[in-house]
C-alpha cells in the first residue's frame, strides 16, 4: 500500500517542505498591503486605485517592466553584500561604502586606461572596483574576527568614512577641472561604457547581478566552503572545534560580499553616470539591506525580492503624480511590508499544514 502511494505522497511531502518558504512571505506581503490600505483609507485615498497604479507603474506594460528591472539591477549586488556575511551570522549594513569606493576605483581605472581595448578597460574597471569593495568589507570581517569589533557598527561607520573619502577624491585629486558646479572625476573612455541588453532598455548590470546571485547560491549550497560557512554561522565554537579556519572564512566571505558591492559601484559608473560623483551614493547599499532581509539571506530569493522592490519603486512616481501622494507614502508602504515580513519569521514551523511529518503520517 505504502509502496504504491509513496510517489504522490513524496510529492506532497516535497511540496509541504517548500511551500512554507513561499506561502508565508506571500501571506505577509498581502497582510502588509492590507495594513497599508487601512492607512490609505484614513488619508481618504482609494486603495483600489493605488494597487491598480502600482501594477501599471511596476509591471503592467513593457515600459513598466523595464523600469522595474532597471531599478532592481543595482539592488541584486548590494543585497548580496548583506546576505553573504549573514550566512556566517554577521549583520553587515555598510555596503554603501563599498559601492561608492568601487565606483571611484572603477572611474580611476577607466580614466587611467583611456585608449586601451574596451574589453581590457571594462575588466580592469571591474577588478579595481571589486578590489576596493573587498578591501573595505573584508576589513570589517577582519576587525570582527581578530579584534572583536561589532561588524554592524563598524560597517556603518566605515560607510560614512567611504563617502567622505569619495568626496575627497572626487573634489580633490581625481577631479575633472571642467566639472565646476558638480565635482566629478574625469569621464571614463566612452568605449568602456557598458550599454543596454539587446532589445531592452535595461543595462547589463541586471545580468551581472543575476549571475552573481546564482554563483553565490552555488557557493553556499553546493561547495565545502559554503558548508563550512553555514556551520560557522550556526555555531562558531563548534566550527572551531571541527578544525574549520573560521577567520579566513569570515574575512573571505566579507571580502566577496564587498567585491559584489564594489562591482555595483563600477556598473553605476560604467553603465549610468560615465564618471564618479556624489550621485553614486544613491542609497542602494541601504535598500540592499531590506532586500537581503526580505529574501532571508537566500541569494536566489534576492532576485524576486529585488524585482518586487524595484516595482514598488518604479510605481512610486505614478502614485505621486496620479494620486497626489507624497514620496514618503512609498516609504511607509516599504516599511509596513518589511515589518510584517519580519513578524512572519516567528510563524515558521508553527503551521501543521507545512509539516512534512503530517503528510507522512497520513500515508
Amino acid at each position: 500500500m505504502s509502496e504504491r502511494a509513496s510517489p504522490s505522497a513524496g510529492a506532497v511531502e516535497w511540496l509541504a517542505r517548500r511551500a512554507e518558504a513561499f506561502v508565508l512571505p506571500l501571506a505577509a506581503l498581502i497582510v502588509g498591503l492590507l495594513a497599508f490600505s487601512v492607512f490609505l483609507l484614513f488619508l481618504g485615498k482609494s486603495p483600489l486605485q493605488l494597487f491598480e497604479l502600482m501594477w501599471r507603474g511596476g509591471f503592467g506594460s513593457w515600459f513598466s517592466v523595464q523600469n522595474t528591472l532597471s531599478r532592481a539591477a543595482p539592488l541584486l549586488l548590494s543585497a548580496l553584500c548583506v546576505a553573504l556575511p549573514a550566512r556566517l551570522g554577521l549583520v553587515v549594513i555598510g555596503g554603501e561604502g563599498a559601492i561608492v569606493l568601487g565606483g571611484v576605483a572603477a572611474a580611476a581605472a577607466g580614466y587611467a586606461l583611456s585608449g586601451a581595448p574596451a574589453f581590457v578597460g571594462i575588466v580592469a574597471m571591474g577588478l579595481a572596483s571589486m578590489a576596493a569593495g573587498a578591501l573595505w568589507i573584508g576589513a570589517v570581517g577582519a576587525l570582527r574576527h581578530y579584534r572583536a569589533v561589532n561588524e554592524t557598527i563598524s560597517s556603518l561607520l566605515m560607510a560614512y568614512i567611504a563617502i567622505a573619502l569619495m568626496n575627497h577624491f572626487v573634489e580633490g585629486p581625481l577631479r575633472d577641472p571642467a566639472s565646476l558646479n558638480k565635482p566629478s572625476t574625469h569621464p571614463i573612455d566612452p568605449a568602456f561604457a557598458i550599454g543596454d541588453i539587446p532589445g531592452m532598455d535595461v543595462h547589463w548590470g541586471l545580468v551581472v547581478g543575476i549571475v552573481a546571485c546564482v554563483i553565490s547560491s552555488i557557493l553556499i549550497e553546493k561547495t565545502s566552503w559554503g558548508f563550512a560557512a553555514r556551520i560557522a554561522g550556526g555555531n562558531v565554537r563548534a566550527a572551531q572545534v571541527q578544525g574549520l579556519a573560521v577567520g579566513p572564512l569570515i574575512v573571505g566571505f566579507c571580502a566577496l560580499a564587498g567585491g559584489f558591492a564594489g562591482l555595483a559601484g563600477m556598473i553605476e559608473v560604467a553603465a549610468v553616470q560615465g564618471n564618479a560623483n556624489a550621485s553614486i551614493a544613491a542609497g542602494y547599499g541601504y535598500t540592499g539591506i531590506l532586500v537581503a532581509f526580505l529574501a532571508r539571506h537566500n541569494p536566489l530569493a534576492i532576485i524576486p525580492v529585488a524585482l518586487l522592490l524595484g516595482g514598488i519603486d518604479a510605481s512610486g512616481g505614478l502614485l505621486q503624480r496620479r494620486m497626489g501622494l507624497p514620496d514618503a507614502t512609498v516609504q511607509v508602504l516599504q516599511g509596513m511590508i518589511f515589518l510584517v515580513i519580519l513578524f512572519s519569521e516567528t510563524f515558521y514551523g508553527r503551521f501543521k499544514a507545512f509539516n512534512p511529518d503530517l503528510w507522512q503520517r497520513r500515508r
Partner: protein
Amino acid sequence: MAKPLMINRRRFLQTTAMGAALGVAGTSLPLRRAFAADLTIGFIYVGPKDDYGYNQAHAEGAATLKAMEGVTLVEEENVPETVDVQKTMESMINLDGARLLFPTSFGYFDPHMLAMAAKFPEVQFRHCGGLWTEGKHPKNTGSYFGYIGQGQYLNGIAAGHATKSKKIGFVAAKPIPQVLQNVNSFLLGARSVDPAITCQVIFTGEWSLAVKEAEATNALIDQGVDVVTCHVDSPKVVVETAAGRGAYVCGYHANQAPLAPEKYLTGAEWNWANVYKMYVTKLMAGETLPNFTRGGLSDGFVKMSALGPAVGEAARKQFEGTLAEIMKGGFAVFKGPLKDNKGNVVATAGQSFVETAIELESMGYLVEGVLGSTS
C-alpha cells in the same frame, strides 16, 4: 409582484456598487487625453517639495502654472540623480504625455537629461543651473538659472547692520563656484556697512545633511557669530538652529520667515514662477523656446523676502537704496581693488565684474574677510 421588485432592487444595488467600484478605478484612467490641445508639464525634484529651500522654490514656481488654462502639471519629488530620474522622465512622457519637462536638480543634466533628450527629440527639456552650449547640447534642451549672488549681497547689508560682534557666519554645502560667489557676496554686502566685519564659512560637504548643518550653525554661534545665512538645499535646520540660539538669520532659496519670524532679517529667494510662465506661454503660442536663459533681481528671476521686524531704519534705508541701484542694472558686487583671503589680487583697481561676467561662473576663491578655506 414583489418578486420583480426585489430583483430590480437587487439589480439596482449591484449596478450602483459596480458603478462606484468602476468610478474609483476609473479616476486613474488617463481621461485627459481627450483634450488634445492640453499641455502636460513634468517637474522633477531631488528632495521634498516642502523643504523650505531649493525644491520648495521650484515647486512654488510650478504651482503657479496650475492656474493657466490647458496646463496639466505632473510632479515627482525625492528622485535621485541615477537611472531613476531617466525612468521618471520617460514615464512622464510615456504615461502622462508630458511635452515639456523641468528636471530641476543640477545633477540631472549630464548624462540623464541629455540621454532622454536624444531619445525623445519631440519633447522639450529645460534644466536648472546647467550651462547649455550651442553645438554641444541638443536643440530640444536648454538651461535657466538666476544671478542670486546680489541677493546674498543684500542679505549681507541687513546682516552688517544687525551684527554686534562684527562676526557673521555662512553654512555652505560644497566649495563650488555658485556657492563661493554667495559666500563672498554676503561678506562684501556686510563690509559695505562696516569694513571690520568678518565672515566665518563652514562647508558641510553635502547638499542635504541636517546633522552637520546643525553642528556647523552651533559651532559658528559658539565662536561669537550673531548673524547666519547658508547655501544648502534646505535652510530649515540652519534657520531654526540659529534662531533658537538667539542669532539673526538671512534666508536663502525660499522664504524661511515662518520658521523664525522674530530673527529673520531678509532672504534671497528664487522667483521661478516668472521663468516657468515664460516657457509655458511661449510653448502654447507655438514659439521656439530659448535654450539659454539667465536673469537676476532686475529680471524678476530672484526676489528678496520682506524685511523682518529686527531690521532697523538705517539698515532699511541702505538695503532699499542698494536694491534700487541693482534694479537699474549693471551693478557690480565684485570690484577692485579686491584680494582673496590668501592675499592674491582677484580684481585690480578699476576692474569690476557685473553679475553676467563669465569670470564669476568659475570662481574658486574666498575674498579677504572670509575666514575659511575652499579645500
